[in-house]
């Protein structure tokens, strides 16, 4: 690994937006390919951040700063990536369920999925149940990812899935859920396909689903 890539990784780990953008621009000026920068700098950087978070060396503020640095670099690369590279693995619709505004985790998952080659439809936060149902029918994503941080609003994940069933579109989309109080048994209970504990797991599950589609 070159020093420039190590500096980009360090910028993301330290959550330094300006430095992450500068290092990315420097790599581009030096002739590096955008996907090479994503795979050699952005994703390894964020993997270190996730590991630190899991080990409780990092907390939410550090995670958020690193996600900002990641995004500052990614926005420079995104326009330069060809359509087949950026959305080549399929389309994911992602959002926080009705009654919940906690979208920091969702935004992190979204950014990392995008950097991993998925096309993203971001529904935002506190999204009414019928909006998910309407947009799944209209935009036909491959995967719907739903998130909540609060136990009372977990019921709205069930309602979205029930809505998809009522509209006859449940079988056309994989549903993956996530968020602090959510678990795999809960996913099974409400009829979701799977549960992701963090952004790495979300990428893994989405990639598996993509590979299964062929």
């Amino acid at each position, binding site marked *: 690994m070159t020093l420039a890539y190590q500096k980009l990784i360090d910028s993301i780990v330290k959550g330094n937006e300006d430095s992450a953008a500068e290092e990315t621009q420097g790599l581009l000026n030096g002739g590096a390919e955008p996907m090479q920068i994503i795979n050699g700098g952005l994703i390894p950087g964020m993997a270190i951040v996730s590991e630190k978070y899991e080990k409780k060396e990092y*907390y939410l503020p550090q995670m958020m700063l690193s996600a900002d640095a990641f995004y500052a670099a990614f926005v420079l690369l995104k326009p330069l990536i060809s359509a087949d590279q950026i959305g080549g693995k399929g389309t994911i619709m992602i959002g926080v369920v009705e009654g919940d*505004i906690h979208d920091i985790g969702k935004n992190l998952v979204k950014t990392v999925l995008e950097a991993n080659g998925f096309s993203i439809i971001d529904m935002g936060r*506190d999204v009414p149940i019928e909006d998910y149902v309407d947009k799944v029918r209209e935009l036909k994503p491959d995967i719907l990812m739903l998130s909540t941080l609060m*136990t*009372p*609003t977990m*019921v709205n994940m069930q309602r979205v899935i029930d809505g998809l069933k009522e509209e006859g579109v449940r079988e056309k989309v994989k549903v993956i859920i996530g968020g602090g109080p959510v*678990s795999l048994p809960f996913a099974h209970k409400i009829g979701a396909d799977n549960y992701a504990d963090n952004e790495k797991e979300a990428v893994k599950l989405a990639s598996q689903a993509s590979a299964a589609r062929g």
Partner: protein
Amino acid sequence: MTVLGILTCEVLEEEISYLLLREKEFIKINIISSEHSSGIAERLSSDARTSVLQDLAEFQPSPGPGMEVIVEVLNVGLHMVKKELQDGVFTNIRKLREVCDGLLLGYGLCGNSLEYLEEEIKDVPIPVVMPTNPNGSRIDDCVCMVLGETQEYLKEVKKEAGTWFVTPGWVKHWDTLLLKELGAKDIKTVKWIFDKAHYSRALKINTEGCYDKQVYAAGAKAFADTFNFRLDEREGSLQILVAALDRAKNLARQKGG
């Protein structure tokens, strides 16, 4: 003598104090001394039934018929790490079972940390009561508990999802809780996170707990002002806790004979 245990989070100290003061059936109220139980001990200090024990080993059941209570208070913020809350609650349930005929928990699901409570304590031979919604489902947390039921929480977030719920316990502990929960080094960092998290309203929940209403109002306003939230208020209810205490008393009585 029937012995009822109450194992509660410090965040409910005002509500639990209120219930204990109004509950005349208890002939004695034993509080296990700790820095976390000092609030309840202070609230109950003028009640002649109150006795502060240095630890559980000091407890001797009163002779004769009737019911007495032992109160153990755990620190706020355990819910931030599921394992910490589980360890704290399960360990203390097992300690209290040695001397109690039944237990009331001052906890809800708490971010689903206690989702598998029954399985975890299936070896515990006394009834353990967790507060429930009127429909029998377990209550989510201290906010839903004092709102009267989970449906009330959902109604409020339907009105405004960016609502931060304020209770007397929150007013007392919010700075500690936020700094610890978010891993933030100072309130400025918390503000930065809150700006990104889209909160807009603080909702003060009023119940008949024994808190000083002026201190509570001033604390709620200080919290809202710190983060530039609009401050609203609404009535809550202690009915869930009252019902849970009644249930725990009945089960303990049956167990204790």
